[in-house]
């Protein structure tokens, strides 16, 4: 099976079960290597359907303070692209079967070498790529390599995206489309934006692909509200915060379970 097919299978299953997929994010290498592996395993046990794994970059301009701090500290500990791929390999060896989407900025990937990165990512067990500062206009080389390797190219759509852009971006996505709930940066927010349902419906008119919503989702209640309108619920900052809270892994397990239940519509 290719990465794209494994991602499709996840959404086919969650659709069949009349629920949304729970898609947690974690910043690789934070707070350290060992805890990264534990956190992802705990989230897997809590019901994660697909993981977004953040490969740290020095200049994460789409990220809010929580993920900025997490990725900065991961870098300060010396986390490299190679380390991140090695962690994925280790999780695969340990029996983790959920798809992994690598989330990073373009420069680390470009410096690694686009073709080499795609080859090594597939070999490590990565199924898709999300690169927030790389719109389809600039992604010709990456898309070509991903197409051959069966790696999903997931682009983002925002509430500001025009109808032309929705169609254009959707036509370049494989696996699913990442809908940014608000114009803004990553980070937990108290309220979901009021026009979210309308935004999701607008995109839905132009694509058959599963739609996952991220940015700002922090609670089971919010996850449940998103699950009613979208196919996937992405949570990052809230879980990263939980991971370094006093209760640590226990809090990750607890919040993970709450969010997974939310994605089930509970």
């Amino acid at each position, binding site marked *: 099976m290719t990465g794209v097919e494994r991602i499709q299978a996840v959404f086919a299953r969650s659709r069949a079960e009349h629920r949304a997929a729970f898609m947690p994010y974690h910043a690789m290498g934070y707070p350290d290597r060992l805890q990264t592996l534990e956190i992802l395993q705990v989230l897997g046990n809590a019901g994660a359907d697909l993981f977004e794994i953040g490969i740290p970059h020095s*200049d994460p301009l*789409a990220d809010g303070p929580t993920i900025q701090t997490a990725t900065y500290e991961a870098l300060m500990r010396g986390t490299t*692209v190679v380390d991140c791929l090695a962690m994925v390999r280790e999780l695969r060896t340990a029996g983790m079967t959920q798809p992994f989407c690598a989330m990073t900025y373009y*420069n680390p990937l470009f410096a690694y070498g686009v073709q080499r990165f795609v080859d090594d990512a597939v070999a490590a067990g990565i199924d898709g790529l999300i690169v927030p500062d790389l719109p389809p206009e600039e992604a010709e080389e990456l898309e070509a390599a991903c197409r051959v390797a069966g790696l999903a190219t997931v682009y*983002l759509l925002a509430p500001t995206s025009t109808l032309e852009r929705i169609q254009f971006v959707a036509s370049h996505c494989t696996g699913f489309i990442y809908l940014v709930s608000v114009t803004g940066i990553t980070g937990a927010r108290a309220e979901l934006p009021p026009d979210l349902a309308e935004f999701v419906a607008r995109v839905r008119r132009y694509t058959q692909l599963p739609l996952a919503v991220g940015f700002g989702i922090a609670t089971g209640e919010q996850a449940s509200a998103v699950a009613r309108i979208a196919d996937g619920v992405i949570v990052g900052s809230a879980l990263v915060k939980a991971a370094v809270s006093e209760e640590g892994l226990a809090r990750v397990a607890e919040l993970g379970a709450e969010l997974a239940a939310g994605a089930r519509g509970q």
Partner: protein
Amino acid sequence: MKNEPMAGQVSPPLPYSAWPDESGHFGPYGGKFVPESLMPALDELEEVYLKSRHDPEFQAELDHLLRTFVGRPTPVTYARRLTDYLGGPRIYIKREDLAHTGAHKINNALGQALLMKRKMRKSRIVAETGAGQHGVATATAAAMLGIECVVYMGTVDMARQEPNVYRMRLLGTEVRGVTSGSKTLKDAINDAIRDWVTHVRHTHYLLGSALGPHPYPTIVRDFQSVIGREALRQMCDPEGGPGRLPDAIVACVGGGSNAIGIFHPFLEYANVRLIGVEAGGRGIEGGEHAARFADPRLGRLGVLQGTKSYVMQDADGQIALTHSISAGLDYASVGPEHAWLRDQGRTEYTYATDDEALEGVKLLSRLEGIIPALESAHAVAHLVRLAPQMSKDEVILINLSGRGDKDLGTIMKELGNL
């Protein structure tokens, strides 16, 4: 030259001055590497800008403000004593230090602020600043046009450039300290972009150099090209100038806005050498510099803050920390048009170290009565090396992008008692 992927390409189908192409690329450089939320805003900016470029009413208002508010045209000064001292070609100085707020930055700040005010449905400006010159210029334009303005500045730079922080606040701008990363210009840009992403519906990002996603490199270049257009006229005028084209033009290059501004109108004059001077910091060897073109170990093709160009980075694609005595040159990337013009062999780049720049400050101050900004002093430093290689009947033009008042603190610390 091995690290240049496009070196040796066939010559471009367009004249130099007609670039970028429709997708915002200068050959392999430039482009739009931004989060999706911003793509519609960039499209809108491009559309509005292209219309305004040919709108006589807009251009007339901008010209009027440049004349009556900025003090343009800035003069070209013959540097008689410096010419005699170096014993080579006649040296002329384009005096951007005499523009309002003390540097060329106001040309672009005013242009973009007026564009927003007249042509866009936006009411708020965000900007980044390193040394504070672009921040002060933006705050000035915003005050004059009555626009709400927020400037992001690294807390390290705020401490280094305290008077400029106060200036901006005095002008009614809100200065927000940035504590992430290295707490300098690069991080201020990240935070300005984050603010822009969040408030993009009513906020314009007033980027200060010929950098960032398309169409910024083009917009900034065009607003700064007033420098080169004036200089071309002034040099060819036998009354105030030498009455001929210069043989070489020298300008410092951080992001590269003052350099591209003076170079651009001269691009099609093939006999005019165009020389950019990067910040050599404490020397190339130790990596403590901002000479993107001079150090193939650190300066490689990459993407930073919306554009593809030469970027100082480590092997893993993480952006390297740069160093320069001048905050305005202390940046990890360089404008994409510079990278492309260099590949074409049309422009050339060298560097001057911190120490050489300080010597340049002393020299120009004592011989010409002009205290240059530390940025501009890098161009002066190169002049000292270049002039002896040229003959007496040749002419050099140097772009003095800013005055040195803002740097007195640094200069006093470095030079001590005189």
